[in-house]
């Protein structure tokens, strides 16, 4: 008798766990022929709120990890992704890419993670300054992560879009909640498994599947979300997001023109977007007339 294939249940990723959506809702994902490939969680507002709680809870720990440690974890994510290349390529093909394009997308995704792994302990030196104030003070400015970041990931890309959106955010010490591509959600769920085996603490990245039209207003109006990055080009959604952002002065970044496969889709300035600059002052005591002139 021919062996029956074991199908995968695609679930969401919150706080390091893989629950189904609390709403119990789903949407069927179909291939080109119209066959149902999987039932995907149609995440709700409540799922998002749970994910924000998880992300906020994880923020203090992730933010205070040594930058070097964050770097190693991002690199570990890249390693795990590389090891599961075939699975991602297969999923991308299932979702409509040809094999060559799928291979390219996975390779680019791995490389992008390695790129940001390298930045984890370097952007601080680029974005910091020691400020030569005129008074007798030592004064310096350093970047610190903004906090909890909501992300509405690119719709057209299943894996590369997701990685491009997540990597600079967590490299910079933030935690996030990501809404994956609605029409190409498979890699997002599988990528959550990669994250879960990469020593990334639970709650640092939370991944939801579902519908931006339903969720964008909740993503942008939540009072414990500090920033939102939007990778799509729906003008009405952008307007609503920016309006809601004013409720708690959220930082909003819209990347609607990003060529994901290009090197321009990655830069330390994308880390900078989700950083706050903190300036610290301390007096310098000038004793007598002693000068360090010898």
């Amino acid at each position, binding site marked *: 008798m021919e062996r029956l294939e074991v199908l995968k249940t695609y679930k969401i990723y919150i706080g390091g766990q893989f629950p189904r959506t609390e709403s119990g809702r789903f949407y069927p994902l179909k291939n080109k022929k119209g066959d149902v490939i999987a039932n995907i969680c149609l995440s709700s507002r409540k799922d998002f709120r749970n994910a924000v709680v998880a992300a906020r809870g994880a923020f203090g720990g992730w933010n205070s990890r040594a930058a070097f440690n964050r770097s190693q974890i991002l690199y570990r994510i890249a390693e795990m992704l590389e090891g599961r290349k075939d699975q991602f390529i297969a999923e991308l093909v299932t979702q409509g890419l040809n094999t060559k394009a799928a291979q390219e997308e996975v390779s680019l995704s791995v490389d992008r993670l390695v790129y940001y792994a390298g930045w984890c302990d370097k952007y601080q030196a680029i974005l910091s300054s020691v*400020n030569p104030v005129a008074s007798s003070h030592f004064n310096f400015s350093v970047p610190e992560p903004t906090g909890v970041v909501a992300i509405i990931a690119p719709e057209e890309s299943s894996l590369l879009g997701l990685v491009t959106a997540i990597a600079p955010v967590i490299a910079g010490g933030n935690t996030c909640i990501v809404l994956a591509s609605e029409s190409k959600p498979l890699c997002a769920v599988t990528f959550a498994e990669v994250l879960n085996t990469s020593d990334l603490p639970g709650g640092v990245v939370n991944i939801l599947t579902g519908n931006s039209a339903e969720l964008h207003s909740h993503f942008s109006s939540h009072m414990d979300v500090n920033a939102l990055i939007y990778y799509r080009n729906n003008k009405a959604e952008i307007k609503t997001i920016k309006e809601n952002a004013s409720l708690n002065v959220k930082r909003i970044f819209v990347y609607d023109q990003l060529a994901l496969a290009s090197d321009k889709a990655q830069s330390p300035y994308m880390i900078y977007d989700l950083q706050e600059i*903190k300036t610290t*002052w301390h*007096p310098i005591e000038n004793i007598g007339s002693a000068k360090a002139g010898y």
Partner: protein
Amino acid sequence: MTTKTSKKPETKLGLDFTTDWAYAPAPEDTKHIKLEKQYDLFIDGKFVKPNSKKYFDTVNPATEQKIAEVADADEKDVDKAVKAARKAFAKWSKTSPKERGKYIYRIARLMQERAREFAVVETMDGGKSIRESRDIDVPLAANHFFYNAGWADKLEYAFPNRNPQPLGVAGQIIPWNFPLLMAAWKIAPALATGNTVVLKPAETTPLTALKLAEVLRDSGLPDGVVNIVTGAGRTGAAIVNHPDVNKVAFTGSTDVGKLIQKSIAGTDKKLTLELGGKAANIIFEDAPLDQAVEGIINGIFFNQGHVCCAGSRLFVQESVADIVIRKLKDRMESLIVGDPMDKNTDIGAINSKEQLLKIQEYIKIGKNEGAELYQSSCSIPGKGYFCRPTLFLNASQSHRIVQEEIFGPVLAVQTFRTIEEVIEKANNIPYGLSAGVWTDKGSKIFNLTTKMRAGVVWANTYNKFDPTSPFGGYKESGFGREGGLHGLLPYVKF
């Protein structure tokens, strides 16, 4: 000055204020100041009448006397100013960066030459003590131009691997607490990066911005590069909502900041917001207490407490609370409140009647909430808007006087036992502009300064500012930085 043991129980072991502490009057000379009776709008390099033909009074808050009347700009005036700025942008953005820098240097020098005039007018119009406007506001304002001037031809070094370009027309709206200084914070980086400007000063303090307009005109800066329009909220809204403005920079209250963020939601305008604050000033038991008390005083009473980064929440470690509060009360007694034009005055006039009423309302709220009120026993002038230095003891985290920005000389005092507790309390607020930490232990300083969710942290000092030092908030205190290398970013695109 002699100090004796007081008989008053609340200042036991403290200073004796029953002796004659009066200082001889030391009024700053105001006779050399030339002020017009009426000020027009500065558009396209010229002073022009407002479309509405309407003018409003600007009043000296220390005397309640009218100083001058100022044009009330409407939508048509703003449109004229934006058009002038747009026209000027074509040339200004193409002007060689080196030459652009030289214009800005020239502005700095002209301000320095007219520094005393600026200081006196600032004090007349806004009520702040002449000592502060002379020693802080005006020199810092000139220094901001001087500092940013040098960036004009060095921008490619500020943004590695990028080619920074100006945004276009910047609409800038500034508050009444540091009128000239805020104008400088806004205009200087905008010009250095090649943008042109439409600036609106606050309606209660428009005069130094209009004096600055004279300087800009005299500097030879091309017409339309900076336009200054006066008016109230309606004028500000016209700038924010003008379709040909590329960038909005606002300093002011969080409420208005949120309105602005919402109203430009449907556009691609770039935005920076520098909003309210409710800073924690944290005193540990191992702090140099006398210096800390000076820091508390400077933190909350500097500029009558009209400071977004004021240290308005005091956290004192329980073990030293009694002695710190006693010293604080003593120091408050010795503050001189009164004529801002007197060089001995520490605390001048509250900026406006409206603001005085707001502060008085909060003092009432604090009393009703059950916090214990203490005010300096100083006398205050019968005329003008004045408020005694005020503190509330036994305030708690849920009190409105702890959660909300008062923007006046009112300090809410809480005590704490552990570092964990004070970090939690200090951060547990929607604001995140600034914080202060006082301790003699270096590792404790860095522990605290790292954990404060605030954009500016002063350790063993408070309320220090410098053009090279970025300033701006976390959370609902806004976004974007002003000053320093980081202050250039909000005015460029890549």
